[in-house]
């Protein structure tokens, strides 16, 4: 099997295709990681809220825990992926 792909691709075209494929893979991973964070935040703190609520007989702690978890997830997503994009933008500017 050759290592050169198919057709008469130039190196520049190949690099462009590779960059596009990398962008697709990174986008997919980011999208599903963000979705998993949102679910995990609500489930984790909703679960903790439910347990404490059961112990102290305050059922309201369950939805409050879910909201808190959602807030923590959103904050973390902004911190992690917002910062990642800022770093990538800074690197792009550096290259230019």
């Amino acid at each position, binding site marked *: 099997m050759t290592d050169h792909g198919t057709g008469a691709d130039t190196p520049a075209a190949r690099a462009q295709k*590779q960059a596009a494929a990398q962008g*697709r*893979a990174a986008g*997919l991973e980011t999208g*599903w*990681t963000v979705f*998993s964070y949102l679910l995990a935040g609500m*489930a984790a*703190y909703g679960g903790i809220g439910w347990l404490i609520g059961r112990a102290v007989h305050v059922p309201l702690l369950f939805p409050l825990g879910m909201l808190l978890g959602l807030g*923590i997830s959103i904050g973390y997503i902004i911190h992690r992926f917002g910062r990642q994009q800022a770093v990538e933008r800074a690197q792009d500017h550096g290259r230019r």
Partner: protein
Amino acid sequence: MTGDVGVLAGGGCHIFNGCGFPAPGLQDFNWKPFFTIGSFGFTKPMLLAILSALVVIVFFWVAFRKPKLVPRGVQNLGEMAILAVRDQILRPSLGRRGDSYLPFLVSLFFFIYIMNLMELIPVFQFPVTSRIGFVWPMVFIVYFLYLYLGFKHQGIFGYFKSMIPPGVPWPIYIILVPVELLRFFVFQPFTLGVRLFGNMFAGHLLLTIFTIASWYLLTLSIGLLYAVGSFALAIFVFVLETLVTLLQAFIFTTLTATYIASSVEPAH
């Protein structure tokens, strides 16, 4: 499959003759076993899963049983298939160092693709992955693989530490630990499996609804107009599903490659 299609195939069930619309539902995903061994029933989805595996095995065996330096015939197709997975799925996530995972990713991609494609092939007409029991084993294989690779390459402590990016103050670590653990151990594999299942389930249901509706509305009345509309939608969904079958296999395999990449090398 029970009920609806049987009622329609029996004829006579059309709009305006007192017959209610035999709406498809969960019952159309439950198949009567071909045969049973004790409490185990061998059903159509099982047969299709075995057929899908055989198609993949036989195709690649035929393509590469006597490989030539200048490929011809089926070997050409086989090489194109492998290069497509390598260049579009493996290399973007893992780079050249990930080439040892190519056989696994190629097998996974084509197995899922053929199982999905069974939805659109006449006679078979059922996507195996719309039964979630066929999806979980693949998810568990991927899950245990990336766990194993993570522990092997980063160590147990290092692997857990790599989940949270550096520079986070320690009180935040405590807040994030439950979220990270649940995301990693529960929701990451959960979303990987449920997305594939959900898309194939919904696609098959849509296709069944519009196909049954086309027959149900087919009368010499205004219903004929609706039947034509429903049939056009059935064709549209069919075309859409040809893309969805490929896309879902692509997404599952791409995410598998990115999970392997994050296990082999910690995220930055």
